């Protein structure tokens, strides 16, 4: 009769469900949401496009301008682009990615001018403690022309 006792306990303790509609609260600051690129500091190295497993990020170059394209519809939210981003300009939102109804609605395009990176590469405080162990062990094979070929000095 364990099940009857369990049922009685369930009735006494009440429901555990969220009352819908439920606003999702990201309790963790390491939640992996949409990728956000800081256009002022991005150097257009293309490392993020190189390591993205689904080709959600594309970096194309025309002359002195780089076009950084990100399609959240293809994104797996794995975070590899953040790990590899040397100037630490990529970050992830800590909220759920939004729904969309038309394909390609959420594609983000950024055009930026090629520039020298800030030396030493200063990361935002939270990104620094997240990515420091990963960024210090870089041995990248041939990459697109990168302005930050020297080892990053933290």
């Amino acid at each position, binding site marked *: 009769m364990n*099940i*009857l006792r369990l*049922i009685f306990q*369930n*009735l006494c*303790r*009440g*429901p*555990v*469900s969220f*009352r819908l509609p439920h606003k999702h609260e990201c309790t963790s600051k390491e939640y992996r949401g949409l990728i956000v690129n800081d256009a002022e500091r991005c150097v257009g190295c293309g490392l993020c496009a190189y390591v993205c497993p689904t080709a959600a990020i594309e970096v194309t170059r025309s002359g002195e301008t780089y076009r950084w394209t990100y399609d959240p519809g293809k994104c797996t939210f794995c975070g590899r682009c953040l790990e590899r981003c040397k100037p630490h300009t990529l970050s992830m939102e800590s909220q759920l990615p939004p729904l969309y109804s038309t394909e390609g609605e959420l594609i983000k395009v950024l055009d930026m001018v090629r520039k020298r990176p800030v030396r030493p590469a200063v990361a935002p405080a939270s990104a620094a403690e997240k990515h420091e162990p990963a960024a210090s062990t870089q041995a990248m094979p041939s990459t697109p022309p990168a302005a930050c070929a020297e080892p990053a000095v933290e």
Partner: protein
Amino acid sequence: MNVSGLIHFFLFPGLLFAVPAGWFYVWGERKAVARMQRRIGPPLLQPFYDFVKLLGKRTPSRHGIEADLLRLWPALSVLSMIGAIAMLPVFPSGRGFSGDAVLLVALLELPSICFILAGFTSGSIYGEIGAIREAVLSVANNLVFLLSIVTIAVTERTFRLSDMAGGSWNPGHWIGVFGILLCIPAKLRLNPFSTSSAEQEIYSGPLTEYAGAALAMWELAHGLEWVALTGFVATLVVPASGPWWFHALFFVVASFAQVMLLSTIAAATARFTLQRAIRFYWRWAAVLAVLVVCSTIYMRYRW
């Protein structure tokens, strides 16, 4: 037809009472099961919303005799259930139909038969499997159902519903009521006897090819089955004397109490396989058969 008969058919416990009551009992079962699983469950008007939404669907057009037959089965189920509910002796002091238990049993059987036939005429393999399961289960469970009715009839010495109604102190009467309660989960396709509409196994079984208004009628028939079966047991246990409003109130309260009991059983058990369900019913059929024969012999030689 006299006025009292018309009131029984259309007002209470007929159409106007039975349809909202059916929706209320279906909601009650879903809500009770949800609460027992620590969930919240659907809002009160959910079965009504489902019904109206299904009426508004655009269904595929079918041609031929099959199309008419497919539409016939749910309509027949709904009509027979309303007839059965109208026949229930809610007011045993002569205010209702003086109907026959045999007719009531026949009307209560029709939805099950229509379910089986719907499975076969729908032309889908899942429909066929579900219909076979329902047919086999129905044979086993009707044995217990009919033996219980016979037990009550033999102890009350009558097949008239208005005389069978009213809780008497005969043990045979209560054995019969218990037997009918045992059959109700199988007739309503509740756990543990829900093998004929096993969604995870056979994709909705006999109702796989139904859509739109016909499906709405099936859901309505299911709600009315709840009212008819629980109402039948309620009329058998209500005390015989009392004013008419007491009988009506007791009818509703006793029906709802059974809804809660059946929901608890449904939440507490898993689905039996067909073999096990049949074995369960055959064992109870054997017990009841022995009791009926003994009580008949006893009464024949005692009185």
